């Protein structure tokens, strides 16, 4: 029996796997046009600035900004060396890929909290007071504005810091808020992927909770350095891409996306049902001979299919969100499988399973019970 049970479990796993893969593709296919429509009707969210600066970022005289008497709580740090963003945070558009030479607005409080920094992959360490020894190979540091002013140093300069007999050499990569209690922001670059470092080198990161000051800083930076730039929001970018793709796909094509996706799923589902029923024919016949009605058989079968449906929807939503989404994101397609995506998936799966069960009822009714029992 162990063999039979193992075979059955393997069959079930195979069925779940096939259906999950196909359904996740279908879900993604179906959600593309739905997402287009969604993007069209969704109101624009509050703009999150996302500024593309063309050309390599160079160091800039921050004093232009902080000399303004109206700007009290500004924190500005421009990092000469770049970093790789690996996650997302809500208040800023930081996703898996950040184009080179991007100016990002990161909440000041975010940078103060190392756990959030871990989320965005910056790997910064905030140190108050004396620099502790024992940190390996720190080569870059952001220093506070007051220290920078006192030392008379600027971004790109090298400072040597002594702790006891130990000598630490840093390249100043940023200047921080003059009112901040933070003396140092030390950036651990030891874990940087060299390729990624190269790719993101030259990014400019601005840390502030004062958008006005930041905008002024950016304006100053761009004007002084004669940069070409584009001010936009991520929603605008998404809409632009969405509209472009939508225009390239007329409605009939989008309908075919949905219909084709469902058809593909149904074909695979029915094929799987056929295999399952073929495997179960013998047991169906035995159970019929022992007094199980067709209705009861269908009930047992339907429960199994509902279990499969729920499992497939769950895993397909995950695959869609975390694999297909990632893959498509690289193409910059605005697809997200969120709750409404999973709900759409469930409804579609219910429809597909209903059709399949209707088909199965016919198949089960046609099982040649007497013949199968005679042949064993």
């Amino acid at each position: 029996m162990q063999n039979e049970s193992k075979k059955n479990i393997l069959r079930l796993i195979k069925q779940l796997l096939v259906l999950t893969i196909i359904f996740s593709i279908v879900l993604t296919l179906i959600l593309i046009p739905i997402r287009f429509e969604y993007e069209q009707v969704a109101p624009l969210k509050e703009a999150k600035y996302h500024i593309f600066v063309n050309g390599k970022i160079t160091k800039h005289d921050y004093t232009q900004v902080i000399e303004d008497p109206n700007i009290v709580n500004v924190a500005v740090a421009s990092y000469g060396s770049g970093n790789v963003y690996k996650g997302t945070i809500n208040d800023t558009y930081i996703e898996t890929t950040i184009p080179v030479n991007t100016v990002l607005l990161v909440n000041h409080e975010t940078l103060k909290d190392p756990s959030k920094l871990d989320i965005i992959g910056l790997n910064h360490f905030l140190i108050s007071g004396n620099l502790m020894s024992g940190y390996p190979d720190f080569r870059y540091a952001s220093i506070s504005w007051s220290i920078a002013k006192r030392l008379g140093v600027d971004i790109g300069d090298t400072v040597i810091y002594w702790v006891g007999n130990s000598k630490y050499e840093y390249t100043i990569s940023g200047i921080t808020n003059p009112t901040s209690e933070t003396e140092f922001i030390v950036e651990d670059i030891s874990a940087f992927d060299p390729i990624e470092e190269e790719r993101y080198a030259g990014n400019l990161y601005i840390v502030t909770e004062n958008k006005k000051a930041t905008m002024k800083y950016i304006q100053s930076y761009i004007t002084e350095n004669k940069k070409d730039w584009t001010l936009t929001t991520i929603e605008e970018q998404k809409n632009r891409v969405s509209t472009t793709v939508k225009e390239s796909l007329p409605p009939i094509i989008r309908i075919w996306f949905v219909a084709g996706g469902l058809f593909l799923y149904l074909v695979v589902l029915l094929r799987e049902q056929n295999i399952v029923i073929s495997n179960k024919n013998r047991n169906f016949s035995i159970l019929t001979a022992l007094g199980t009605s067709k209705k009861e058989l269908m009930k047992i079968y339907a429960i199994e299919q509902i279990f499969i449906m729920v499992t497939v929807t769950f895993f397909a939503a995950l695959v869609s969100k975390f694999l297909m989404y990632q893959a498509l994101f690289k193409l910059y397609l605005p697809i997200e499988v969120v709750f409404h995506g999973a709900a759409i998936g469930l409804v579609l799966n219910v429809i597909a399973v209903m059709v399949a069960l209707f088909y199965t009822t016919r198949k089960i009714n046609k099982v040649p019970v007497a013949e199968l029992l005679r042949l064993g």
Partner: protein
Amino acid sequence: MIKLQNITKEYFNLNQKIQAVKNLDLIIKRGEFIGIMGMSGSGKTTLVNLIAGFDEPSSGKVIVDDLDIAKLSGEQVSEFRNKKIGMIFQHFNLIKEFNALQNVIVPSIIANKKYSIAVERAIKLLSQQGLEHRLYHYPAELSGGEQQRVAIARALMNDPEIILGDEPTGNLDKESAGKIAEILKNIHDNEKTLVVISHDNNILKSATKIVTMEYGELSISNVNNR
């Protein structure tokens, strides 16, 4: 009592009408043991299928204990089969994924009987078949004779009045076939009605009546005074 009244069963094969059973009349009294013989394709299995409610006659009536099988709904036929009929097949037809005990319990589960009582009865029936040491063995781990004994225990699980058999020893060696024949005789001694297709003399010699099917027609060839 089983009454087959003027039964005809026709079916079509490649657009050709075939009469598997022709105008057959047969009365099987309670407690009788009917052995059915006949060539391949003579209609023996069709006859048993009609009694079990797997098939409906093209004309005529199958009446079991005053129930006209053709007039029952699908659900009622299933209930009838579960409670009144026990079936034994040539190829045993055990559920491969279940062990001997689980296989025997299935009819009780279908009948919604209490599980603990079902287990108790199943163990008792398997013990009667000399299989108390095989309760948790799966069909693939049992010999043909043992599998058939499990199938017989399963057939007796709901204490049906009628036992139908289709070549129950057809797949067994002589020794195992002898044991099965003995078991069937014991079942008959316990006042069950048996209708068994067989060409095995060990079985047929226990039958109270032997009928022969030939081209869908029936003739009584022997009556044993048991």
